[in-house]
């Protein structure tokens, strides 16, 4: 049904929204890119001339010597994203099948969506209440006669909080794929003599891939970019790339370097997304919402 649109049709429909996206998405992105080649002036604002210094500093090629501080932080963030995604798959993949085969599908779906929509500050906060020195976990351990543990603030807390926050992002798109599985393919595989594991691997797993990949992106991207979860559950002791960006635009007030860090993070994300869009097309992109 799509027809060529002339200006008269496009201006009142696509026009305002497109203008908004250009002004508030495209222009700021270009500004970040531009600012990443500038420098900080005495007032904490941006000044020329254009240099590669910010990127040199980020990638540890500073004039002062070889400093891997920021690359380490980026690596730590990618590791957090990777581990979170893997744990979310272990927890979420069987869970999507659990929902699909349950007679109470709608209730279970609602139960997944509810924490998903609960403000993520509250979700991170809940883990502080559990992990803090006189928190729920240590109260339980005390009852059992065990020694208390010091988990807040810590990387463990950051990891648990991140998995907790983003797990529903994996389950929901995955469930959309699992729900549509054509189980006759599995029967056919069994009829043809395939065992349980090869049957699942060849007849069922490929059908869950669209949802699984969408879910992986939806967990990995925000986990890599988070600064709030590490800020709250790591109490400033766990630094991720998101924290670097936030600090540079906040207290450190070096917007040029912050822009370079933001652009590196955006580059990682957009590269992954571009690959995904090429493989999955417009329909695949719709799985992400």
């Amino acid at each position, binding site marked *: *049904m*799509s*027809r*060529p*649109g002339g200006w008269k*049709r496009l201006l009142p*429909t*696509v*026009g305002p*929204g497109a203008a*908004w*996206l250009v002004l*508030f*998405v495209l222009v*700021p*992105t270009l*500004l*970040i890119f531009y600012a990443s080649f500038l420098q900080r002036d005495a007032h904490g*604002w941006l000044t020329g001339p254009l240099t590669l210094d910010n990127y040199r500093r980020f990638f540890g090629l500073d004039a002062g010597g070889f400093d891997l501080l920021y690359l380490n932080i980026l690596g730590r963030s990618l590791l957090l994203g990777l581990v979170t995604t893997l744990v979310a798959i272990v*927890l*979420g993949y*069987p*869970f999507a*099948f*659990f929902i699909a*085969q349950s007679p109470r599908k709608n209730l279970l779906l*609602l*139960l997944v969506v*509810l*924490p998903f*929509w*609960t*403000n993520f500050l*509250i*979700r991170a*906060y*809940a883990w502080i*209440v*559990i992990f803090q020195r006189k928190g*729920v976990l240590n*109260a339980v351990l005390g009852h059992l006669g065990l020694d208390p543990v010091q988990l807040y603030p810590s990387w463990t807390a950051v990891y648990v909080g991140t998995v907790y926050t983003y*797990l529903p992002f994996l389950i929901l798109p995955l469930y959309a794929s699992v729900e549509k599985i054509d189980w006759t393919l599995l029967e056919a595989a069994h009829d043809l003599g395939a065992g349980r594991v090869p049957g699942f691997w060849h007849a069922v797993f490929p059908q869950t891939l669209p949802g699984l990949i969408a879910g992986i*992106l939806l967990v990995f*991207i925000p986990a*890599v*970019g*988070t600064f*709030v979860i590490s800020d*709250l559950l790591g109490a400033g002791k766990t630094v991720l790339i*998101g924290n670097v*960006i*936030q600090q540079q*635009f906040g207290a450190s007030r070096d917007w040029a370097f912050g*822009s370079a860090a*933001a652009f590196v*993070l*955006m580059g990682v994300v957009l590269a992954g997304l571009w690959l995904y869009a090429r493989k999955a097309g417009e329909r695949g992109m*719709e799985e*992400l*919402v």
Partner: protein
Amino acid sequence: MTARRWLGLHGALVLLFLYLPIAVIVVLSFNESKYGVAWHGFTLKWYAQLFEHGRVHSYLRNSLVVATTSTAISTVLGTLLALGLARYRFFGRGALLFLLYVPVVIPDVVMGVSLLLLFAWVRQYVDALHLSLTTVILGHVTFQVAYVTLVVKSRLAGLDPSLEEAAADLGAGGWTRFWKITFPLIWPGVVAAALLAFTLSLDDFVITFFTAGPGATTVPIYIFSSVKRGVTPEIHALSTLMILVTSLALIAVQRVSTRR
């Protein structure tokens, strides 16, 4: 144990993981004791205290002003954009779609700082866009537009084009066609999109954090700064209220969006 049993056991553990933290907050919000987690009896005093000093009122008002204004703007922009994208082929359509996905997938912190930079850059040339509720609204509309467009667009994809063509054949103009044919068919999608946008706005912390100035504190900003100061029963109470509101909104969205 059979595969189905394992699946059930695993499912129960995941549900426990998802709900234990929420349950802890809700239960402690009714606990008499201010410190620690031991149960000292039922009380509603933390809820009373929350509203006593009146500050929460103004944060709540800010949150609602931002959410209603930004939802109104983004619902109109997004619905029109979805109509155009679903109907017409045009130069730059692919690029526009890509731009639409940027706010959905980009890490919040990048979007937040890029808006902060945009507003600061504009302020160099004109005396406008000082960080306030207005800049928060501009930021919220930006991510809401993307979600509204995508939700309405998927609703339009399921629409029978012959209905509109018939109306056009019978002489109905574009405006009449929209109000008499298209809108009555897609309104549940539009309402669902608006509710989604509203919830996203109420919930947002990161974009607000970077675009709000002094005096533009919303509820999530207040929660963040309180949590940074330490755990208090009032925050348990506020969180419980927010969980309650979210649940109700969610049930409303499900009711509307399952309408055919």
